[in-house]
């Protein structure tokens, strides 16, 4: 039991130490910065291209390519929560309302002493009235036959740090709820088609998608500024009743508690494949999205629809900067046996020779809209936690709990010595000026 007790004491001593908490902050901040500087969630080859091989290997082995979900990061946040809990119970709550007890007045850095006329009882009454008028809470206690007066201001604000800590814990609880019960994902819907969201079984039909891009001449040249992305959808939720919605950026829709957001758009493409001039029906049998590919029948070649080019410059035959659809084309790549045979920009309705008599023609583009969806039952808790955290910070920073220790002693017949010392939860410097003003006024009013 002694060993367990010793271990427990060590644990409490370590995790209840503010410097230990700050050390955890330092590691937390450093890992966070690593995530900012090192690209996250990329293919391993990207890191080997960007960094020297030993560094790239270290990034991958230490999970720094996905640092925010790495054991290090989650572990540090867990340790901070543990430290916060121990600090709350060991330091914050005990220090919240310190006991009333006598002190050596002249040993406290902020102290004052002066003589006034009157016996101690009368002087104490005058002092109580003085502090009471200024909003100080007065309490009197007897210690070893000596009467002490204690004046507290903003005593309630001692709970500020506790409130901030509670807010942090509530936020952590809210995010944990999302991890346990929430989900998110994304889907793309071609105009005129319907998709089913796997997690909710809701269906989304994209009736129409529109976008607005405005060309604006700036000092640096022409800028094509996106103005609006609008999806016209029909969504069928749990009640089985199709409902019509307009989805825009910053204007998500709520279907059975799951939110759907406008996140992207693109151009699907219908292609026509011919073999020695004869159309091959059903290949490719669907509208391809950018990045999709299909195999050319009877060959080992596959064609990749790499990307849509809204405007092909007529003079150069190269992609133009204008993202609006004027003279569109597509970039196609041909792959054989895993090796690229090349790529080409093909204007719409013009064919490209794939070899061996095969030709392919981009025929028609179809806009698709990308949606993100998210179900997060922890959001209300995170919101409450954020509010509580900020409230705690504001209370901690803008209200200074201070305590005055006042002792009145008889010095001669009809005269008393007043000794006052002050402490605050933030040291002495922050209260120095106010204490000085207070004491000057006190002396002026009581002598």
């Amino acid at each position, binding site marked *: 039991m002694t060993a367990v007790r010793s271990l427990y004491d060590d644990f409490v001593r370590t995790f209840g130490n*503010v*410097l230990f*908490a*700050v050390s955890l*902050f330092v590691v*937390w901040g450093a890992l*966070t*910065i690593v*995530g*900012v*500087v090192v690209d*996250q969630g990329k293919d391993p080859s990207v890191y080997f291209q960007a960094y020297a091989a030993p560094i790239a290997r270290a990034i991958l082995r230490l999970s720094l390519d996905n640092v*925010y979900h790495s054991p290090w990061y989650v572990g540090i946040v867990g340790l901070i929560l543990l430290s916060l809990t121990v600090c709350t119970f060991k330091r914050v709550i005990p*220090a919240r309302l*310190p006991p009333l007890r006598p002190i*050596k007045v*002249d040993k406290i*850095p*902020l*102290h*004052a*002493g*002066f003589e006034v006329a009157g016996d101690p009882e009368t002087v104490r009454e005058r002092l109580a009235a003085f502090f009471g008028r200024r909003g100080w809470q007065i309490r009197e206690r007897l210690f070893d036959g000596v009467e002490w007066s204690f004046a507290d201001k903003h005593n309630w604000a001692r709970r500020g740090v506790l409130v901030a800590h509670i807010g942090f814990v509530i936020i952590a609880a809210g995010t944990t709820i999302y991890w346990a019960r929430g989900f*998110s994902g994304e889907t793309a819907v071609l105009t005129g088609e319907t998709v089913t969201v796997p997690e909710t079984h809701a269906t989304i039909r994209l009736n129409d998608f529109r976008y607005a891009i*405005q060309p*604006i001449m*700036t*000092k*640096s040249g022409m*800028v094509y500024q*996106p*103005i*609006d992305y609008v999806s016209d959808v029909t969504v069928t939720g749990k009640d089985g009743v199709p409902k019509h919605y307009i989805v*825009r*950026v*910053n204007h998500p829709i709520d279907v059975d508690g799951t939110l759907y*957001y406008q*996140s992207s758009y693109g151009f699907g493409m219908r292609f026509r494949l011919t073999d020695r001039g004869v159309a091959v029906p059903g290949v490719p049998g669907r509208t391809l999205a950018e990045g999709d590919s299909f195999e050319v029948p009877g060959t080992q070649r596959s064609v990749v629809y790499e990307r849509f080019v809204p405007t092909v410059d007529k003079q150069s035959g190269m992609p133009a900067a204008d993202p609006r659809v004027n003279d569109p084309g597509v970039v196609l790549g041909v792959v054989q046996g895993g090796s690229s045979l090349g790529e080409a920009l093909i204007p719409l309705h013009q064919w490209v020779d794939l070899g061996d008599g095969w030709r392919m023609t981009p025929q028609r583009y179809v806009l698709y809209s990308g949606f*993100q*969806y998210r179900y*997060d039952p922890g*959001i209300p808790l*995170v919101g409450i936690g954020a509010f509580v955290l*900020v409230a705690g*910070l*504001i209370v901690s*920073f*803008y209200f200074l*709990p201070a305590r005055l220790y006042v002792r009145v002693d008889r010095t001669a017949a009809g005269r008393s010595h007043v000794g006052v010392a002050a*402490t605050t*939860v933030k*040291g*002495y*410097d*922050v209260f*120095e000026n106010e*204490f*000085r003003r207070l*004491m000057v006024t006190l*002396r002026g009013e009581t002598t």
Partner: protein
Amino acid sequence: MKMPLDQVLLATAIGAYVLAALALLVYFFSREDWLRNFGAPLAIAGCVAQFAQLIARYEMTGIWPLLNLYGSLSLFSAMAVAIFIGFAFRYRAWYAGGFVLVLAAIFLAYGATWNEGTLPAVPSLQSYWAKIHVPIVVSSYAAFLVAFVFSCIYLLKYYAERGFMQPQVVAPMATDAGPVVPASPLAVADFTTPVEDSTPALARAAASGNAVAAWLTTLPSLPQLDVIVYRAVAIGLPLISIGIITGAMWAKESWGAYWQWDPKETAALATWIVYLAYMHLHTRHAWRGLRTNWVSVLGFVSVIFCYLGVNIWISGLHSYKV
């Protein structure tokens, strides 16, 4: 060609800042009152001109002026000067004005290089949150700039004073629940004499005619400077906390998740962590002062990385130069 009103106001602000900065920088060293009396009104005039410029820009274009780096840097420098003016009046701290104004003028001039004219907002920025989140975050950065300047002055005075200081025992401080401690120089037992300076050796050197020591005594004591830094961080930390929270609320509305680990979000989190560390360290007497002021300097480096570094060098969801 007639200059648009917002450009006139911008030029006025920069001009006023430069003149005020020069006057207050000289005042920092000379303590000639007329320099303060010349620089302070100019600083106030420049700040007013800057806010007027932002309003004029909004009135002229109908577009919220903080949606690009030009607009947000303009608010940043205006808020930094405004917060400083508040501190200058509250703590009689005009001596720091030259440094604040130099930084404000630099950021303002740099922001002007990002002025591409009037551009409508991209869809993700077309939100009422732009009018809440951006000013709050930028104001927090401004408060941290003020803290940074006072931290630099603290460090300057600290290292300059070291040459005059005799080895001395630093008394541990008591807290409400802490032990009773020996007396420190802050004691105010006798109201007929002023509070002693925290470094009597410096006062002795000044009295013996040392010019540097004499100049150092014109600055507030180290504890007083530390309190000013603490007050500035105490403005910035709640603001950046609210800024991160409102940003998360906006992100949830715009991108579907309140937290995406976007470089801007995480850099702001890192900045928040640094100032959180500052506040925790400031509760420890042994760390309050020199070390916390170095943390404040580090914090402002983090602010600049978060504000400008991430926007300009790292692509992400915030890559529209806000």
